[in-house]
């Protein structure tokens, strides 16, 4: 693998990570203020649609971006009214918002453009194009022959749309707002102990609404990025679970901005690897060793606990061991190298596995390996002033 391939992979990782990052920071603000938000996906989708539709109608991507933010904000407002004003269940409200966006975007797109639930494709000023920095090479042939430093500069640093840089700036900005301003301190406090914040004479409802609206703005930018910068137009369900992966990244990052960037880049890397390498091979030996090793660890842990642990973890270990043995058996019967020789052969890792890695990793993190992931203490609970 030469240096240019690595740079290209890093470039793809960054492009994939930006919508995750923006949505993840959006969730960060909301959840740090004590409002769970599983509606990130829906807000991104609504923003992706409206920004593409308005960009097409007006010919200006900036007006489109504003419209997308507006769409996301209005869903945020609904979430705020349901979960703050009416003290409803925040999770159910989030679920409803996801469905609302999934349905409405297609219904309106069909009613507006009659193109099977998509917007016409965007071009020219109706799209965010990559910005080429001074001195950066733009042609692939030139880049291939350039020095490593130049490749790095031309491919990875330069050539992205402005929203990528906005996403990257959003990380230190979020950190600064949350940890270095009075507003941020209060916002974090309201997610931990709203009663204390209320006692200090600060308006809990106002603070939480502010957090939910910031979340809306960031989700709006994320959605607009997908439909006007990555793609040229909106297609049905184009967010493709990114809102949920962002949620996973948020837990992975334990609700901290810089870690959120790390988590999103990691998940972006999974996407990039999956896109670029269709065929990832691994020695069968390693697969078997890893599966059996995990089983042994789980069983060892469960043996020291109760019956329930034994049942669940033992069952899981049994399933993993059976998979390992089936793989080994399949390899051995299909090759002439014999029972042990076949272990040296390679198996192809399924693409579905790579795509599922963010979800699997989130579950592993939630299980408490590598430090327990504990969210804001008052998360998910409506604040009732009068007792």
């Amino acid at each position, binding site marked *: 693998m030469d240096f240019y391939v690595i740079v290209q992979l890093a470039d793809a990782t960054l492009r994939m990570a930006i919508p995750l990052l923006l949505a993840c920071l959006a969730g960060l603000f909301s959840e740090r203020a004590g409002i769970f938000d*599983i509606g990130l996906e829906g807000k991104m989708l609504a923003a992706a649609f409206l920004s593409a539709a308005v960009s097409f109608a007006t010919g200006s991507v900036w007006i489109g971006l504003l419209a997308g933010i507006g769409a996301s904000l209005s869903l945020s407002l*609904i979430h705020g*009214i*349901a*979960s703050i004003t*009416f*003290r*409803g*269940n*925040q*999770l*159910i*409200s989030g*679920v*409803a*918002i*996801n*469905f*609302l966006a*999934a*349905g*409405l975007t*297609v*219904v*309106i797109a*069909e*009613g*507006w453009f*009659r193109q099977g*639930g998509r917007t016409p494709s965007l071009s020219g000023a109706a799209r965010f194009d990559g910005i080429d920095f001074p001195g950066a090479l733009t042609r692939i042939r030139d880049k291939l022959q350039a020095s490593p430093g130049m490749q790095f500069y031309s491919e990875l640093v330069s050539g992205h749309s402005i929203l990528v840089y906005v996403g990257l700036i959003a990380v230190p900005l979020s950190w600064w707002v949350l940890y270095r301003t009075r507003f941020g301190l209060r916002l974090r406090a309201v997610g931990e102990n709203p009663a204390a914040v209320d006692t200090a004479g600060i308006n809990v409802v106002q603070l939480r609404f502010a957090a939910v609206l910031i979340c809306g703005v960031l989700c709006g930018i994320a959605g607009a990025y997908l439909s006007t910068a990555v793609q040229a137009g909106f297609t049905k369900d184009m967010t493709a*679970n990114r809102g*949920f992966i962002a*949620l*996973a990244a948020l*837990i992975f990052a334990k609700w901290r901005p810089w870690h959120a960037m790390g988590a999103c880049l990691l998940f972006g890397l999974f996407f990039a690897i999956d896109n670029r390498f269709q065929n990832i091979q691994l020695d069968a030996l390693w697969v078997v060793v890893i599966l059996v090793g995990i089983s042994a660890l789980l069983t060892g842990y469960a043996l020291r606990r109760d019956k*329930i*642990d034994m049942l*669940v*973890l033992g*069952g*899981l270990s049994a399933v993993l061991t059976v998979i390992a043995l089936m793989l080994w058996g399949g390899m051995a019967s299909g090759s002439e190298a014999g029972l042990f020789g076949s272990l040296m052969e390679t198996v192809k890792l*399924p693409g*579905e*596995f790579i*795509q*599922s890695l963010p*979800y*699997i990793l*989130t*579950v592993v993190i*939630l*299980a*408490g390996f590598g430090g*327990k*992931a504990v*969210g804001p203490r008052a998360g998910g609970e409506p604040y009732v002033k009068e007792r």
Partner: protein
Amino acid sequence: MDVLPRWAEVVLVPLISLVLALALSMIVIAAIGEDPFNALKIMANAALGSTQGIGYTLYYATNFIFTGLAVAVAFHARLFNIGGEGQAMLGGLGVATVCLYLPLPHWTIALVVATLASAVFGAAWAAIPAYLQARRGSHIVITTIMFNFIAAGLLIYILREVMKPEGSMEPASQKFAESTHLPSFFDMAQLFGWEAFASAPANITFFVALAACYVIWRLIWHTRLGYEIRALGHSETAAKYAGIDPVKLTMIALLISGGLAGMMAINNVLGEAERLVLNATEGAGFIGIAVALMGRNHPVGIIIAAILFGMLYQGGAVLAQDTKIPVQMVIVIQALVIMFTGALDNMVRAPLERFFLSTRKRA
């Protein structure tokens, strides 16, 4: 103690939510330039106008009864199982596994074996999120969402690499043996010499679903286990004080929930498709949330809500053929029902409470 009389709680509140959701949906239909009343007529006619339409409605309703019950059982323990979709997918995998690899000479045997397999697979898929919730306090909502996606990936892989018959391009399993064919409403009507339900997919599973409703009703309100589940849902500290083991109860409630969601597969996989295809669940796992919320977590309410959503699905499908309103309109209505019955419950309830309080004062 309660401000609202029981009939208002059970009938009026869900009804008002439904009317609000429908009114907003009709505004949306009008906004995209279609006639909302005409749309309503087409939908009602499609869902109830013929025995075939009714057959489709009841087929969808059967799916939704299972997933609705699944969500409701978890709700009784104050757990939000959002993973019905993934559990139903795994249930389908269970049904396909036994139907493809076991000899099942008669449909009655197939039904029993498939029911067991689907429930076991569904419950197994719920087991890890349940365990993590019970033991490690990991949030069940997040873990079940993640397990939905993992299930989708797993199913794509299995259909593409394992179950796909050789030479076939489509990621789907082979057709099950002829002997596993469940009697459809058409077959049953013919027994009585009645030509009805034509090609509608409704089948004997509908009665299994009704039986499941009865069993769950007995379980929740007439057994010690059900009492413990409800006690846990009302207050974990009180339940603990009463000697209930929250870890065990959380596990049991979620395993029942996962099993019920998995059992949906006997309807859509064994009853309708008779093979395992991609996306066999068609989002029914999520509709269970709306059904459980609207049915107030009670089996009778769930049956009514499931039939309503069955009508909505059948009507929406025909609506998409006959007009320019896309089938996603159904998702909009579903979202609004979830919003009004679930999240905006207090908004619907507050004016009603004020009204009933004022009448009581006068009396």
